[in-house]
């Protein structure tokens, strides 16, 4: 359904407690609160006591799971108004993380992707991280011409806020940039745009 045809798009997991973990860090955003709650529900008290939760209430679809998250007895809970601040918060948490730390990410693709950039910068391997997508499949798009990142892109063709070119979103995803690729849509003949469409519907 969501992954069809895009071979470079990440394949997501289901969040479930990793028994090998000595410390757990769970970062979620908006609708990602739902998988997070499921994860916390599956943890035993020892795991919960070793779990740091980061939650951003920024949401494209308006879902906020904070009240339910607060009911779980975790080691610490940090709440952020925006995804960007949550990712910076994750950076600060991982900066002090030790061997045996396991990371759980859930939310939009842009949030998971940018959080994954942070995890990679600390040398975390794929087998130490679980990622579960939740909510809308809006895309984060990198403009190949000016380098601008656009969040929450929903249309095949859109105007880049960085360079004002019309971009077409290619079905090609870069984990390193945590973004899809946007290239000039009317590159060959100005004004001759490809057909616009809703993405991932």
């Amino acid at each position, binding site marked *: 359904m969501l992954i069809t045809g*895009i*071979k*470079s798009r990440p394949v997501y997991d289901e969040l479930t407690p990793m028994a090998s973990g000595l410390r757990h860090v769970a970062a979620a955003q908006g609708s990602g609160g739902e998988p997070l709650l499921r994860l916390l529900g599956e943890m035993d008290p020892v795991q919960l006591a070793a779990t740091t939760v980061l939650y951003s209430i920024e949401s494209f679809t308006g879902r906020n799971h904070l009240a339910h998250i607060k009911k779980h007895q975790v080691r610490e809970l940090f709440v952020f108004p925006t995804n960007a601040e949550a990712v910076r918060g994750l950076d600060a948490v991982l900066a002090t993380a030790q061997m045996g730390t396991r990371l759980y990410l859930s939310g939009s693709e842009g949030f998971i992707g940018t959080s994954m950039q942070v995890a990679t910068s600390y040398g975390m391997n*794929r087998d130490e991280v679980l990622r579960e997508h939740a909510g809308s499949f809006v895309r984060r798009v*990198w403009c*190949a*011409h000016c380098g601008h990142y656009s969040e929450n892109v929903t249309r095949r063709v859109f105007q880049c806020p960085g360079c004002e*070119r019309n971009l077409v979103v*290619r*079905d*090609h*995803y*870069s*984990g*390193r*940039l945590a973004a899809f*690729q946007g*290239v*000039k849509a009317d*590159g*060959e*003949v*100005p004004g001759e745009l490809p057909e616009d469409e809703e993405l991932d519907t």
Partner: protein
Amino acid sequence: MPAIPTPTGFTLDETYTPEGEYRFKNSREAVRRLPFPFPDDEYMYSMNLEPHVPAGDGALSAAFDIDEHYVSECAHRAQMLRDMPGVHYLALPHMLEAQWDLLELIFESYNRDFPEHFTLTKNGNEWRWQNRLLGIDDSFTFGDPATLPMDPMEYATRQAQGEFVVLEERDNTLVIGAGMTTQRADYSLQFNLGMNFSEFHGPVPKLDKLGILDRALKFLLRMKPGHPVRRVNWSLTVNPRLETSVETLPDWAPDRAKVTAENAGEMVHLRIELQPLHLLPRSNAIVFPVRTYLVSLAELVEHAPDWAKRVHRALASLDHELADYKGFHRYHAAAVEWLSQHDDGAPLATGYPWYPDGIQPGNS
């Protein structure tokens, strides 16, 4: 500093950019030595890997081929790196060992295959590298990056024709770890860096369906040092433009709309990619070089008429999806129409030209 003696047999005053007015042409010899990539009248996408052993007396007689465009291509690379820093050369931090491997492979190959131009002298780890074509005479300590003015891979590939992508093995796949790609055909190194084999092949149509990708990956993961393999690939490019990256697409894509059946011979260039893959001995990384050759359709007709006929037939029967992927959908018909005037329909040999029975350039 001593003056660089002018090398003979190399075109120095040559450009690959609109600012330089695309001053580029091939001699008859340069055309007839090309690794011509069409063994049959009908083109089929395939991995077509074969052992990279010297063959014929053309582009496949050396491990890393150089030709009359060597000096101008190195100058173009330097200009592209200067104009867009951080776009054309990138390396992930842990790739240093592979970088030294690659430097050694390129320099040893050039030293062995073109001793009149290059000399590598080793005294333990103290190496001296002489490149008489570019007037370089440097000494450095192999393995010690502080003794070079830049990354070992950047240093070596600034002096090499073709682009170079280094792939590292990780979790049973190959991941792009570094690249020197000033001659990219419509992709972005910044974007693709860190991608695995199936991810960076994602946009190629039909590949997966044909099961080609899995087989190719399995084959590459079994490669052995000292046993390189090669394949050839091709596309079309308007004007002799080497740098056709995604980043600069707004600069070059409009040229695609300027091609007509009248000017296709001059404007449309066959872009041949010779890809000799090597497993690097210390790092276990694989280097994927793309040695790019540009030749206009008119040059093919003039110097290699049988190859021009073959290109006509291969393009005329080409699948639309592939033409679209290769980016010449808009002028595909114009190129075919122009070439049709130069194809009498005579039967042509099959097989690559570096094999004795393969298709030869023909005589005009």
